């Protein structure tokens, strides 16, 4: 669950106003697209959720944690309730598929027994069974993104935040990935997908939040992508 109230973010170094008085609520179990042009404030909004930046003013609540007051050393606790996925996958190159996923469980102190039970299940869920011993460099882009999804999913997060997850994939793989997100959402996990891809957004009837110039300019449940991408 994300609740942003009157959130403003000004970057100290440049004085840029990235977000200006944003109000936003994403409830438990929702599937939301976040769209907008480059520099609109999407990334800042994501970073406020993951705790990479702090709001200049206003209130940000993520999975019951107050992100405006949280201490840095407490951030791992919030992040363990989130699964974060990036456009460039961000896998550890010298670890095989299994270890890339198992690693996220080790971080939270899971036992070897739990890891041996959970990792194969999640890899099967994302369609990567039989690829456990491959290195990221031996996989296609779509497969690498599935590893990233498996890693995000393995600790059963309350919410998955995906930043341009289909940015490096062809349309067919992109669609497959969105179907996978839909499947995960049906299992109860909240999904927030930041994307530029109009066709993809329109192919799914989901809530779509459009952001521009640091303001939320539309927020609809019909999946209609109203913003014209430059």
């Amino acid at each position, binding site marked *: 669950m994300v609740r942003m109230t009157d959130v403003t973010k000004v970057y100290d170094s440049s004085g840029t106003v990235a977000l200006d008085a944003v109000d936003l609520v994403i409830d438990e179990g929702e599937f939301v697209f976040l769209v907008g042009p480059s520099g609109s404030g999407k990334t800042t909004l994501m970073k406020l959720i993951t705790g990479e930046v702090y709001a200049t003013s206003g209130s940000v609540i993520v999975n019951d944690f107050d992100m405006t007051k949280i201490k*840095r*050393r407490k951030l*791992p*606790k919030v*992040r363990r309730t989130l699964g974060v996925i990036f456009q460039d996958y961000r896998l550890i190159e*010298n670890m095989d598929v299994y270890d890339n996923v198992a690693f996220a469980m*080790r*971080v939270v102190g899971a*036992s070897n027994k739990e890891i041996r039970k959970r990792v194969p299940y999640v890899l099967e869920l994302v369609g990567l069974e039989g690829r456990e011993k491959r290195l990221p460099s031996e996989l296609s882009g779509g497969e690498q993104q599935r590893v990233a999804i498996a890693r995000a999913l393995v600790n059963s997060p309350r919410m998955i935040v995906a930043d341009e997850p289909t940015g490096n994939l062809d349309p067919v793989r992109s669609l497959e990935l969105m179907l996978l997100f839909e499947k995960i959402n049906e299992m109860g996990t909240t999904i927030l997908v930041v994307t530029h891809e109009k066709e993809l957004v329109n192919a799914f009837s989901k809530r779509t939040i459009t952001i521009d110039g640091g303001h939320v300019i539309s927020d609809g449940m019909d999946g209609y992508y109203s913003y014209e991408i430059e």
Partner: protein
Amino acid sequence: MRLSRGGYLIREGFRSIKTHSFMSFATVTIIMACLIIIGSVALLSVNIDALIKELENQNEVVAFVDDSITEEAAAQAIAAPLEAVENVSSVEFVSRTEAMDNFMGQYDEDLMEGIDETVFRHRFVIHLEDIARMAETKAALEAVPGIARVRAHLEYADTFVTVRNIVSVISLILTVILVFVSIFIMSNTVKLATFGRREEIAIMKMVGANNGFIRLPFVVEGLVLGVLGGGLAFVAEWVLYGVLTGRLMGTLTGSFITLIPFRSMALPVLVFYLGTGVLVGVFGGVNAIRNYLKV
């Protein structure tokens, strides 16, 4: 921390050394090179210091017994109060007969015709602990009852003290500079080695790893690389020192110069090398990743 998790993190440290083998090699090599340079300068200065001390010891003081004391036993009895004088390290009695024999051994026998031992006095050859205090010790020796005169080469003593002080200051300055330069080079190498890992650290942070979880493999890695660098530097220094002193002693055969065997300095050298290697490896690594942890 669970045992399985701790074991995993330690294994990660070793795995990382293997995975980043080139940077590991560079780190060990730099630590090793810097330690050898510092160690060589330090060992050189220790040897020079020992050499000067050796020369100082050869600068003896001679205390002549009063003419009135002719009996050898009576003269020998003065040894005890002489030994009690502060800064005296050894006292050796030389009878007038021995003194004459020594004297005659140095000069042409013809010159000694008609001279008997009564010309000579009983005497004591005295070595001091610190020749910088020669003047005050000389005065104290002269004050001992039964001692008529004390012969001491104060001008030589002053020269030795000056040389020793200059050498000590130069070697100290050189060692301190080298230590700072080496720590700078070593920590930068460790920093460079961790620079390529910032992405890996960012991923760890994003999946919810706390700083301790991220740091421990770096601590293990730093520890292993530091011990390796320090240990290899110790072995290399031993070999180098052995070869150099061997050659030097070969050319200095017959001279008074003796060099300290490495074996007698091995333990402090090993402790210093391992200690510095581990400190630089562990603190360098942990310090280098500090900035990457702030995400």
